[in-house]
């Protein structure tokens, strides 16, 4: 495909959505509430008896807490979140994982399944062979077990659906665009699966790889070849997610499915041009607005 050159002024914008009653936007330093009858939550601070906003966003009142939510923020973990991360470092009895949070997350040796599947205390020998299980640069899928005082996360992979990830594509988006749902593992009807990590890291892989997994989560099928059709589907899903994220659409299984259906009209490489990205995002936006209005 020949490279396209365009002016910045020809940037494609999404059509503005008609907002009937937009919520009030607070900017840093603006007084949210006078007086001390409300407690200050995230995004606010107390200044001489008034609660002021410290970020640009919308205000939420939950019980007696005043919270101002910005559009973009670094991932802040909560217990039970599913995250996708990359091993960045090995230390005594644990791995450090990069999860797009303010501090690296910790994966303790006692929080992973042993390759042989036994249940026993970890010995010094296990510690010495940590590198055999997970090395720097490996991608893993884990759940947040605990949040420490300094807001670093403790992860664990002791369930069969977590563990080292095999062949697939990683897409990084802003964490606030990933919708909170009951399950973050989605199997799409056209043979691709995706893990929508709460931290904004999305892993797309062919469904056949997961059903073939044998229980310990460490066998990496690096020798298994993925067919051209599966690869094309993965590339198409990846371009759809990038298009949706660029125009700030929420990402969940329905929105990705809708975008994928729409994208079938175009070549995969055409999905990278701004006009097509805008078209896909607007179609997804329309159908989702319809969906939310009907419910």
């Amino acid at each position, binding site marked *: 495909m020949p490279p396209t050159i365009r002016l910045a002024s020809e940037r494609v914008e999404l059509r503005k959505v008609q907002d009937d009653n937009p919520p009030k*936007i607070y900017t*840093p330093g603006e007084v949210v509430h006078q007086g001390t009858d409300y407690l200050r939550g995230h995004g606010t601070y107390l200044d001489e008896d008034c609660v*002021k906003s410290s970020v640009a966003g919308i205000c939420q009142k939950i019980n007696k807490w005043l919270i101002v939510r910005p559009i973009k*923020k670094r991932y802040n973990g909560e217990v039970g979140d599913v995250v996708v991360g990359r091993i960045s470092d090995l230390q005594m009895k644990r791995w450090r994982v990069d999860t797009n949070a*303010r*501090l690296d997350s910790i994966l303790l040796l006692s929080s992973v399944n042993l390759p042989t599947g036994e249940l026993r205390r970890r010995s010094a020998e296990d510690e010495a062979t940590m590198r055999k299980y997970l090395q720097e640069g490996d991608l893993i899928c884990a759940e947040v077990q605990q949040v420490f005082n300094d807001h670093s996360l403790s992860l664990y992979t002791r369930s069969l659906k977590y563990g080292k990830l095999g062949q697939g594509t990683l897409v990084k988006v802003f964490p606030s665009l990933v919708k909170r749902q009951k399950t973050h593992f989605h199997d799409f009807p056209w043979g691709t699966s995706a893990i929508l990590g709460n931290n904004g890291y999305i892993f797309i892989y062919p469904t056949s790889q997961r059903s073939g997994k044998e229980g310990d989560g460490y066998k990496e099928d690096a020798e298994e070849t993925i067919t051209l059709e599966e690869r094309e589907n993965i590339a198409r899903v990846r371009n759809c997610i990038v298009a949706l994220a660029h125009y*700030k659409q929420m990402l969940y299984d329905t929105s990705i499915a809708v975008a994928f259906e729409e994208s079938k009209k175009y070549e995969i490489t055409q999905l990278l041009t701004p006009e097509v990205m805008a078209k896909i995002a607007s179609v997804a936006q329309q159908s989702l607005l319809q969906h939310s209005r009907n419910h």
Partner: protein
Amino acid sequence: MSPLSPGLRLDGRRPNELRKIRCKLGVFNQPDGSAYLEQGNTKVLAAVYGPHEIRGSRTKALHDQALINCQYSMATFSTGERKRRPRGDRKSIEMSIHLRQALQAVIKTELYARSQIDIFVEVLQADGGNYCTCVNAATLALIDAGIPITEYMVACTASLANGETPLVDISHLEETSGGPNLTVAAMPMSGQIVLLEMSQRFHLDHLDKVMKHALRGCQEIKAVLDKAVRDHVASAGAACNWEFKTD
């Protein structure tokens, strides 16, 4: 060089008029926050990464607050003559330190112990007031990244012409023509001054007048930036139907 009479400056502005400000938030996808700001012909790009784990030596970590790392860089094509060293020369390092001083005063670093916030500022075209435009662009980028700040950090320049008329927001030509050059970085809502710098000199009697003009310039710039932030939040929020979740 005195400004043209009757009361107009070289670029046709009145003494208390600011240059045209154009800005955009969220111009890049990779950094956590980014902004592009133009003040007249001075064009600046700012990118913010963080807060994230401290890279390199962990010993630099502060146990009760975040480490702020600023880098000021000028593109080689930003000045009239091709600039040989974009960063690392004495002037750039001094600017980086001043930038850090200004932003550290507003960022709520106590919320991010043992983390690091990186702020990179690139001047694409330098036409006077480089430092001020950098501070303003960095503030917008921090807001875009969702990093909590106590309030806007705005900077503005002021000068004295003909020994009696205060000028606001001076351009490069006015800077190099020999007049005094006062730079103020302040928090417009609380009126606190974080950085005050001056070159050349004028009589102490005029200081009050010039400072007042500079601070008023800060207030006006803040109003423009605030509107841009509100428009950005409104359009991004409406796009996802206000469902975005952050905690």
